[in-house]
């Protein structure tokens, strides 16, 4: 059942039933309407009604029956038409207006639904309908409370209230109502499914499965229940397990069966990791609330941040999932186009979700907090949150990228290097942020050679220039003067500014010091002299003189000694 439809359903194609169904009824007796009702075979019932009609047999209230059947079949367009036609007749009972209102409600025609409902008699059903309409469109709390107060302590009204709780994400309140009614009416098996739906939303997938099993035991081919079971499997296991469950449902359904077909198509995309998303999801936007979010997720996975943003920018978030997605999209876009505004929004959304009572202990909630602190550059806090969910993301490139940056920012270069090297994603590996952090880790971990090789593999660009500066300075700081000298030498060739000369000068002397300390082979001196000479500074000769003197005293061969 989709109550969350936003897009009006009328105007599109009505359900087309394809034929192929066998009725093993060998009795030659003409079946009675009641038989079809008991089996909830509304197609059969409607066929019978139409047949009787064409044969001149007049079933009492045939129009109402057709309306009833098409309504419960989920063909609200047909029931709407039927009821509309009935309201035009003179002897039309008043309640038909409320029935029409219900049909319009499910078609997403909320304004018309309200008009129709108000033409009907005051009754519980009318109140329930207006109650839901107030929640859905008019978001008028005062109105809502008015209808709320009109609700009576009868089962239907209480169940209707529970469904509002559910739609407002107040799952515990809904469960309380269902459990109370179940205690009084043990045979209300359907309520178990409602409870299972609530537990699903609360992320208690195991509990959901358990409660659901009660219903499936007596009605094993229930579409709603089997779909929920598939969703539980998706959360508990994987898409494959979920798809198997859904396949099961598709196999037992006759193809004239249109009910929940959109839901099933939607979920197949989900379970197949987004396969067919572009074909299936766009028409389902605003019909199935998750369709838009899933399309956003699809675009994010395709790295199409702009498209994702376009889809979600006008969405007013209400559920944690929506807040998270808006946060993610804003974070991605903010970094892509360098917009502080987007980053600010992202950080706020992340904080809102991660700090909420319902999400603070979920994995996405922790990820949100980590992302929030990351944007605030509070890496100690980032690590607290990432560490708490780390075990779920082993080998997850995205996770590791953030994790390594946080580690490295706090000076834990050893671990950061390990984590960075685990990343496989080419796009990340080619990102300058990745390369620069890896370079720093290498140098801090005394592997300057690897950093230098990383630089050598890069094409000349402003990024490679930056990397050179990083290598020069970090190596210098770490006393790895050989690669510091090489880097400064390269920098000076690209941009002969005095600063680079000073760096190179210091680094070259540093190499000399290392040689004297026995930490660098004496032969390295051979490379030092040409590096010094490439700069036309009077100090060069002074330094070279001292170096040569030492080389001579210590009988170290310097190739160009003679020159």
């Amino acid at each position, binding site marked *: *059942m989709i109550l969350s439809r936003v897009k009006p359903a009328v105007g599109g194609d009505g359900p087309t039933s394809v034929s192929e169904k066998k009725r093993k009824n060998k009795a030659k007796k003409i079946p009675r309407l009641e038989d079809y009702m008991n089996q*909830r075979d*509304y197609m059969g019932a409607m066929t019978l009604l139409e047949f009787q009609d064409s044969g001149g047999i007049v079933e009492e209230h045939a129009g109402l029956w057709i309306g009833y059947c098409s309504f419960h079949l989920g063909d609200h367009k047909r029931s709407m038409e039927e009821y509309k036609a009935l309201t035009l007749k003179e002897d039309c009972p008043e309640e038909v207006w409320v029935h029409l209102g219900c049909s319009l409600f499910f078609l997403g025609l909320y304004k018309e639904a309200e008009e129709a409902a108000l033409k009907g008699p005051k009754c519980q059903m009318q109140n329930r309908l207006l109650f839901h309409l107030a929640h859905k469109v008019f978001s008028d709390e005062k109105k809502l409370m008015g209808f709320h107060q009109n609700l009576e302590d009868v089962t239907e009204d209480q169940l209707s209230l529970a469904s509002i709780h559910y739609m407002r994400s107040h799952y515990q309140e809904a469960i309380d109502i269902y459990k109370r009614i179940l205690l009084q009416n043990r045979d209300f098996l359907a309520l178990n499914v409602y409870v299972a739906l609530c537990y699903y939303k609360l992320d208690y997938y195991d509990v959901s499965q358990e409660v659901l099993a009660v219903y499936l035991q007596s009605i094993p081919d229930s579409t*709603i229940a089997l779909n929920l079971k598939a969703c539980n499997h998706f959360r508990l296991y994987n898409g494959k397990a979920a798809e198997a469950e859904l396949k099961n449902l598709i196999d037992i359904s006759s193809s004239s069966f249109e009910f929940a077909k959109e839901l099933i198509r939607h979920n197949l995309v989900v379970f197949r990791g987004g396969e067919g998303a572009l074909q299936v999801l766009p028409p389902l936007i605003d019909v199935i*609330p998750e369709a838009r979010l899933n399309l956003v997720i699809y675009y994010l996975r395709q790295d199409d941040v702009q498209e994702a943003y376009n889809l979600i920018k006008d969405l007013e978030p209400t559920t944690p999932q929506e807040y998270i997605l808006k946060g993610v999209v804003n974070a991605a876009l903010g970094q892509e186009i360098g917009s502080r505004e987007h980053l600010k929004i992202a950080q706020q959304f992340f904080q809102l979700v991660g700090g909420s009572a319902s999400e603070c202990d979920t994995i996405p909630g922790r990820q949100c907090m980590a992302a929030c602190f990351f944007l605030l550059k509070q*890496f100690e806090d980032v690590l607290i949150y990432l560490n708490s969910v780390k075990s779920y993301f082993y080998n997850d490139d995205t996770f590791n990228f953030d994790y390594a940056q946080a580690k490295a920012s706090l000076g834990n270069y050893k671990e950061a290097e390990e984590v960075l090297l685990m990343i496989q994603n080419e796009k990340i590996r080619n990102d300058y942020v990745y390369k620069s952090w890896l370079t720093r880790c290498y140098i801090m971990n005394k592997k300057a050679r690897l950093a230098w090789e990383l630089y050598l593999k890069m094409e000349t660009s402003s990024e490679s220039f930056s990397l050179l500066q990083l290598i020069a300075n970090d190596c210098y700081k770490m*006393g790895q003067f050989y690669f510091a000298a090489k880097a400064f030498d390269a920098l000076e060739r690209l941009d002969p500014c005095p600063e680079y000369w*000073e760096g190179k000068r210091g680094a070259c002397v540093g190499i000399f010091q290392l040689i004297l300390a026995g930490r660098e082979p004496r032969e390295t001196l051979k490379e030092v002299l040409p590096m010094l000479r490439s700069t036309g500074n009077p100090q060069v000769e002074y330094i070279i003189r001292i170096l040569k003197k030492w080389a001579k005293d210590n009988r170290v061969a310097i190739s160009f000694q003679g020159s």
Partner: protein
Amino acid sequence: MEKTERSKTKLINNQPYDESLDVNDSEEIASIYTPTPRQTVSRSATRIQNNMATNSSDEFEEDGKQKKKGVEGGQHGLSENEEEEEDDDDEDDDSDETESDDEEGEQGSAPEGAYDPSDFDHLPVTAEIKELFQYITRYTPQTVELDHKLKPFIPDFIPAVGDIDAFLKVPRPDGKPDNLGLLVLDEPCTKQSDPTVLSLWLSENSKQHNITELKVKSIENPEKNPKAVENWIESISELHRSKPPATVHYIRPMPDIDILMQEWPPEFEELLGKLSLPTADMNCDLAEYIDIICGILDIPVYKSRIQSLHVLFTLYSEFKNSQHFKALAEGQKTETPPSTHTGPAEADTLTLE
């Protein structure tokens, strides 16, 4: 905005790279090796100096000589030590969005294993070389601030479970409770009748052949949907099977099939055990052979043999479909002639002339 500009500046790396603007006395040369007393220098002061020191490199170019180098070396030692002390603060400052970028002037931290000139104090070198060493500390490496990039986690796809029954539903027209949404979910059962098949079936069973417009759906992509095709075929043959057998109006009286199915007299049965019935190999033409067989089976033959043959095949069909005789035949493992099945269901009504 401010921040991006700043970080750009930072990338250019033309920021202060030394902190030696403090005017130090030459006496302080000694402090190269024991820089600790200087820790108290406030960081903000350092920062300001840094900002002013952008062009300080010139100074080095000019001074070039030993004394001053010594001074700067001392300065460097100081700043390094200071950094160590302030390690903890660094993170806090980093988090401070607007401030964090100012800090590239100071080393972000003095990481483990950083160059420490005092490690080399013991080297037995000449004064000249020792002086040369001052060049090392004279350059203060910049702390290159690296950009961070948050790779936001992309949530899993979200399956849809639908909403809960809101009890906005129409009641049965006859006012009886349907218990939908209570005892069972308010959803149609998965096995819905096919309207076309059911219409055919209804008209067959009610003898009302009044279906004016029969909705026959076509199946899209039948090659991809063999199940639908098979189901259709099955339901139609099911329909045919359920039809009453065709009635044939014989012109001349014919015995009832049930009578024809009675047992032969015992003597005849006994004889059959020894003899076999005449086969089609008999030396006679088809018409004669039909007469003989019909004679044996008590089927009257009139002018035209067609009606007699119809009775004959009906009889055959009855035997063939009879559960009783099937079991009997299987029990005796008698060979049954290959069925040349001519189902009577193929024609609804047949009037033979």
